[in-house]
């Protein structure tokens, strides 16, 4: 075993870097967790059974579950509720949910160590802690009933929110026990065995969807307050630029425009409605000082990253003697690259702020409610407890809402506005002032022996988002960003001689952040594309080539075999059609996908079908998992076919959906998802579909045309033969 082995576990990395104090918070009663989350002066004082920060049961049996993870479409409110209700034996019909307030002590994600929703780990991180919290709560309810009856708690059972004593035929509802059950729960309550699960594993209806089909759901952008004003902003189009001169004489003539706010790097127009704000902004004559980045363009970005990738990087994983193996035999080399991407959540960035002397109240949908609170406190010069954040359901997150910038900008505007103000970004502002998925450049080299890989070298070059976003996890891991090398250091294939290196290279000017699929998007695209090129060199079928090196990864082998079988791998296809395969272990899920594409002579790619098989451990809500894979693969297909942000003169060139294209329904493939039954702990699923789609589509194009694309999105000129790859 290599000395570097522990780096393969991000949980270990984070725990060693940051400690694990979160565990202690679980049994502090809920009342202690009540940082203000209701509108000021209206904070209800909860009563009844409050065993911990996640569960409240009132006298009527109404069971309120507090969600430490945010709902952005992935269905986590339902699956987390299922986990809690399962071990609590709650009455599912009486369950309702509420968003956790900002509180790192109670609600820090156990895998991320901060209160955040990301990295496909909501279920993985909370699976055991929430089961224990709920089982401990159940034990308190049983103890209270047993005491009332004067019987042994062991002789009592629970189901659907009721404690029963079969021998005497007595029963008490959880509601009836709510006032007598509070106490200290047992440290290690017994957990159910999977055969006793009555909720987990069933495709229960989602709790959050009924209000999303009739317009009732209130996203951040929908918040309305008495006296609310509406604002929209223009930040410096050039990264790092400043406001020069502003002529607002035309803007102020527009009916409904109330105010023009000039800050050093952005301009806001405040009005009676968004139309006034938007028309006012359009009517401003702004001269910008372009600042130090006015010369930056995409060519410079690629020049710098390619140059950086030529030097050795930090060694993230080493097995055997890669140099020796690569020095003997026919070395095959390839470089792969991925572009900047914007998130383009359907709900544009927005935040509503009410700043009063000594306090600040915010409404928005965010993946980092506590960080928003603490960041805003600094900007507004307020104690943290004076900042109230009302987290709304998110109209898409995808990593974009792991940043607090939309709240910071809104508060800076609100500092100049009397009363509450809703700051809404136009789509153009949203696309041009994103925090972008970094560009990546991957160098791969390999040698083959007896039809298998003998030597392997993978050097990943790219921005380190973790170094900025969670510095202790970066410095605590010898300055290796676990995300940049995720799915590269834990490549599933048995390769005797391997070295994975990482070169940190921050692009000029362009801010970088997490984007659905994160590090594995890049690594799996590079590795799986290279695997197909190696298979061709070895004269092997791509599935057989992979199978031979997966004998020690049976869960992935099973997924690969199932995907290949269901997709009709090996069948004869019409001319210009191709099947491409991809397989990986990412986010603790084992997934294989076969894409069926058709490439038109003029270079357009038609996606016919994506067939995927996944072993993601215990499927808490199987229908949600299927939905996440369907949606994730569409997200990945969008990136494969269309996604690219380019820079010219220090600014983003794309601006809206006409030039930053999304896949549409007429371009969407049929998608078949096959879940493999498993008793293993749950894996992550929110991003897995994205990562698996990219190389499967690329490899299907390779099969259809023989053209080995080395970058995405696809280049239609290359596929049409108008240009070389």
């Amino acid at each position: 075993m290599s000395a570097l082995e522990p780096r393969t576990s991000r949980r270990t990395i984070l725990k060693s870097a940051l400690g694990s104090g979160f565990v202690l918070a679980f049994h502090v009663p809920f009342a202690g967790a009540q940082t203000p989350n209701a509108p000021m002066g209206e904070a209800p004082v909860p009563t009844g059974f409050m065993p911990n920060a996640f569960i409240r049961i009132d006298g009527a049996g109404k069971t309120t579950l507090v969600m430490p993870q945010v709902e952005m479409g992935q269905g986590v409110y339902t699956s987390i509720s299922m986990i809690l209700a399962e071990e609590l034996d709650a009455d599912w019909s009486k369950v309702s949910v509420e968003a956790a307030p900002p509180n790192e002590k109670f609600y820090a994600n156990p895998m991320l160590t901060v209160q955040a929703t990301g990295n496909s780990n909501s279920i993985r991180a909370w699976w055991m802690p929430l089961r224990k919290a709920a089982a401990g709560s159940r034990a308190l309810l049983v103890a209270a009933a047993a005491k009332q009856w004067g019987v042994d708690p062991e002789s009592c059972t629970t189901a659907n929110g009721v404690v029963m004593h079969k021998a005497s035929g007595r029963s008490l509802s959880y509601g009836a026990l709510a006032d007598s059950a509070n106490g200290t729960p047992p440290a290690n309550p017994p957990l159910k065995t999977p055969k006793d699960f009555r909720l987990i594993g069933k495709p229960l209806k989602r709790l959050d969807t009924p209000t999303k089909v009739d317009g009732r759901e209130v996203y951040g952008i929908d918040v309305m307050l008495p006296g609310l004003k509406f604002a929209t902003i223009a930040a410096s189009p050039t990264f790092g630029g400043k406001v020069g001169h502003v002529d607002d004489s035309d803007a102020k003539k527009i009916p409904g425009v109330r105010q023009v706010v000039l800050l050093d790097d952005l301009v806001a127009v405040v009005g009676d409605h968004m139309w006034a704000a938007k028309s006012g902004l359009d009517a401003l004559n702004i001269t910008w000082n372009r600042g130090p980045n006015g010369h930056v363009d995409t060519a410079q970005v690629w020049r710098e990253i390619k140059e950086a990738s030529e030097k050795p990087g930090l060694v993230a994983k080493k097995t055997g003697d890669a140099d020796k193996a690569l020095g003997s035999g026919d070395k095959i080399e390839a470089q792969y690259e991925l572009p900047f991407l914007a998130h383009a959540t359907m709900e544009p960035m927005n935040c509503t702020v009410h700043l009063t002397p000594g306090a600040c109240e915010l409404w928005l949908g965010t993946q980092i409610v506590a960080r928003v609170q603490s960041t805003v406190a600094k900007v507004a010069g307020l104690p943290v407890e004076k900042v109230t954040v009302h987290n709304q359901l998110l109209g898409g997150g995808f990593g974009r809402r792991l940043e607090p910038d939309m709240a910071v900008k809104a508060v800076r505007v609100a500092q100049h506005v009397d009363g509450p103000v809703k700051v809404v970004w136009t789509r153009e502002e949203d696309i041009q002032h994103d925090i972008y998925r970094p560009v990546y450049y991957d160098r791969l080299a390999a040698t083959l022996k007896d039809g298998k890989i003998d030597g392997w070298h993978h050097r990943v070059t790219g921005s380190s988002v973790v170094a900025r976003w969670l510095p202790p996890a970066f410095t605590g891991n010898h300055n290796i960003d676990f995300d940049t090398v995720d799915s590269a250091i834990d490549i599933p294939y048995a390769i005797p001689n391997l070295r994975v290196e990482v070169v940190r290279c921050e692009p000029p000017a362009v801010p970088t952040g997490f984007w659905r699929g994160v590090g594995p998007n890049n690594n799996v695209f590079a590795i799986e594309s290279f695997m197909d090129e190696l298979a061709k060199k070895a004269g092997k079928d791509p599935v057989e080539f992979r199978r031979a090196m997966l004998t020690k990864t049976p869960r992935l082998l099973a997924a690969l075999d199932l995907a290949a079988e269901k997709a009709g791998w090996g069948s004869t296809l019409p001319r210009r059609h191709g099947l491409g395969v991809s397989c990986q272990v990412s986010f603790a899920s084992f997934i294989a996908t076969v894409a069926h594409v058709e490439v038109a002579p003029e270079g357009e790619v038609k996606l016919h079908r994506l067939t995927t098989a996944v072993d993601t451990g215990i499927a808490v809500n199987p229908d949600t998992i299927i939905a996440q894979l369907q949606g994730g693969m569409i997200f990945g297909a969008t990136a494969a076919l269309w996604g690219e942000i380019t820079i010219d003169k220090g600014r983003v060139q794309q601006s809206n959906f006409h030039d930053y294209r999304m896949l549409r329904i007429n371009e969407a493939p049929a998608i078949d998802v096959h879940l493999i039954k498993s008793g293993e702990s749950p894996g992550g699923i929110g991003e897995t579909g994205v990562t698996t789609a990219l190389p499967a589509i690329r490899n299907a194009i390779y099969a259809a045309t023989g053209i080995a694309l080395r970058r995405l999105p696809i280049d239609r000129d290359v596929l049409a033969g108008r240009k070389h790859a």
Partner: protein
Amino acid sequence: MISLRINGEDKSVDAPPDMPLLWALRDLLGMTGTKFGCGIAQCGACTVHIDGKPVRSCLLPVGSIGNRAITTIEGIGATPAGAKVQKAWLDLEVVQCGYCQSGQIMSATALLASTPHPDDEDIDAAMAGNICRCGTYVRIRDAIKRAAKA
């Protein structure tokens, strides 16, 4: 003041005639079910019906509507096709983040009202103007077919 007939009710708004209906609905009437997505009729999140036809409200001047009937997501459940679509959407769990779904449901309802048994091509033509970033297209297609059978 501009008079509008929305979901069968008479409303009036103090709006300049060039204001798109989207903002009158959202910011003046507080009917926030209709969503802002792009502002240039590229994404369909703002889709409403004018006399039963799907229209992108982000580019429709409020002064141009006159006495034509406006239907929004808040009122679409009162129509037979709208109720079927909403039910199919929940039965098949189409929705993820849900932000685009008001527009998707409005487009799907207009499709079913004019083409009770749409085939895949009809669905593509009617729904291609509605972007879903969560990628719920597979289920949208299935749900439209299910609603057509209901």
